[in-house]
């Protein structure tokens, strides 16, 4: 595939310069306990420690700060009940422009509160993809706001890639880098950065077996959207876009899937060993290592931990009897 239509390292470096003042350079953590269990050296890039608790702050900030003043004045809009909504609200607040966030009725109250606290203006709609898109289109027609799609947006994709850029600088040379796949924004930017810096590093995507559109699409060489989703990893329930799929086809070396039990086990192991709070979606790549889906013995492996927004009263290992 011709790569000249895809993101380049220059796009990601430009994103880094643009968002530098507004995002954290998150730490890379190591654990002798997890290394011993894996028989490898693992380097965890902790985006759960990013502003709003997720890497999404990077892409949204890049998109919002890439707008011209005239565009920006009319605000930005997105539909997301999760981390991207908070990220857009925060970025818009930093630029001093309105953020219109469409959320489904019944979205978790803490998420709505976080968006409100960050100055986002929430409009509620029915909980279907069609209703969300229709409501967002209506708001855009009324306000002239610019849509900031959670992943099908080159500025967002480039911004998400900045975490991998930092990982490559802060860790020793890596044989493998892993990240999870939802809509594909993170992996598009990350694989672009990693492959440009170190072409021999293998880039592997990981997703839940219950939301495996990327694995199926990758194997079939054509985009196969999800028809059914069953996973605790709520950040990974989106389907790829044609553009993110093109990046994956060109730059990702393998895609592996993991079971739900492996996700929960990996999440717990990460909490225990690293003393950090990560959400289920974050744990998917480490689950792939733990479940033996990726051959890591003797290798240096980078793992992007994507976020840490969880309901502390509904942790997956807290069943009724053990509370």
């Amino acid at each position, binding site marked *: 595939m011709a790569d000249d239509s895809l993101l380049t390292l220059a796009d990601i470096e430009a994103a880094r310069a643009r968002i530098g003042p507004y995002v954290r350079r998150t*730490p890379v*953590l190591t654990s*002798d306990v997890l290394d011993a269990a894996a028989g490898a050296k693992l380097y965890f890039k902790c985006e759960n*420690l990013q502003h709003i608790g997720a890497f999404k702050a990077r892409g949204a900030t890049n998109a919002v700060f890439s707008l011209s003043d005239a565009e920006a004045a009319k605000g930005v809009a997105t539909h997301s009940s999760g981390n991207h909504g908070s990220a857009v609200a925060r970025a818009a607040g930093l630029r001093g422009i309105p953020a219109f966030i469409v959320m489904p009725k019944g979205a978790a109250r803490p998420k709505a509160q976080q968006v409100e606290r960050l100055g986002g203006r929430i409009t509620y709609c029915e909980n279907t993809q069609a209703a969300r898109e229709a409501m967002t289109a209506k708001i855009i027609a009324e306000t002239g706001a610019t849509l900031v799609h959670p992943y099908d947006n080159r500025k967002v994709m480039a911004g998400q890639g900045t975490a991998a850029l930092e990982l490559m600088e802060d860790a020793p040379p890596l044989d493998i880098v892993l990240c999870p796949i939802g809509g594909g924004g993170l992996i598009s930017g990350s694989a672009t950065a990693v492959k440009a810096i170190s072409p021999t590093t293998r880039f592997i995507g990981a997703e839940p077996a219950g939301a495996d559109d990327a694995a199926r699409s990758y194997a079939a060489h054509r985009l196969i959207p999800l028809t059914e989703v069953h996973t605790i990893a709520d950040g990974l329930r989106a389907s790829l876009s044609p553009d993110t799929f093109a990046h994956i086809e060109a730059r990702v070396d393998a895609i592996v899937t993991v079971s739900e039990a492996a996700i929960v086990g990996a999440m717990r192991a990460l*909490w225990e060993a690293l003393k*950090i*709070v990560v959400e289920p979606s974050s744990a998917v790549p480490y689950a792939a290592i733990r479940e033996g889906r990726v051959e890591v013995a003797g290798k240096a492996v980078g793992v992007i931990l994507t976020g840490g927004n969880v309901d502390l009263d509904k942790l997956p290992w807290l069943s009724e009897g053990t509370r």
Partner: protein
Amino acid sequence: MSVSALPPVRPISLADIEAARTRIAGTILRTPLVRLELGPGYPDIRLKLENLQPINAYKLRGAANAVAMLGEAERARGVWTISAGNAGQGVAYAARKAGVPCKVVVIETAPAAKLERMRALGAELVMVPFDVAWKALEEHAFEGMDGTLVHPFDDHDFIAGHGSMGLEILEDAPDTAAVIGAVGGGGLLAGVGSALKAMKPSVKVFGVEPATAAPFSVSYAAGGPREFPDWEASFVDGAGGRSVIPRMWERMRPVVDGALVVSLEQTRQAMRLMAEKARVIAEGAGALALAAALAGQAGDGPIVAIVSGGNLDLAKFCELIGE
């Protein structure tokens, strides 16, 4: 060796601390200092995340410094320490990294997980009753140990290593007005306080203890080292001793501006808040400083709350933060 034969306490100089910082740079993590986003009406609080160190506690700083200062002959004979907790893990980790043999005198009732972790780090364990370990701590000696003792708190080089944290704090937040650290043995406060007072004397340095075990507070009020009369064990097992050791009092007194006390309930709430807002796991001792800051005991800030460690059983953590 009797206590009177120990070398006299001397001030920890800025040069000692700067040299330590250079020595330990390859072993420790330069931990992030993150702003806790609480919204209006709260003091400006930043968290120094020492729970993210490779052994999940600040003790690695001192241990790495003490080990790095060994001469060739001393390296061959090895090091030993007395601790079943974070200091033991720190010395074992630093020794293994430096290729130095390590023995640890531990209380035979210490939790199996902690003992296992030290064994995994290559340490040879010597199990003794509590009274024997305490005597070894006081006398700086234990029958049959011929290597260099790295005392878990009463050791000049160990404390100088902790001081490196103070340098990082002022680099990342030059506007810091107050720093709060937990008091157990007193090494953390002595080291960090020495660095802060040398660099920026106007910074207020506070020690904090749980209300159930607050000998430093009693000593501070009395103007000399005292025992705590009604000592009670609690989940805050990494801070709050039965008494302040006179040599540690001598080290802390010149560099500390006040002694704070928080309730176990305040500590528990601070643990939950950190999990929610900073996405990190703190042990009880690691949450004392934030609890004091939230209670307004250290002014309006900017306050740095040192999150000293994150080593506690995950099930216990979940139980404590459950609502």
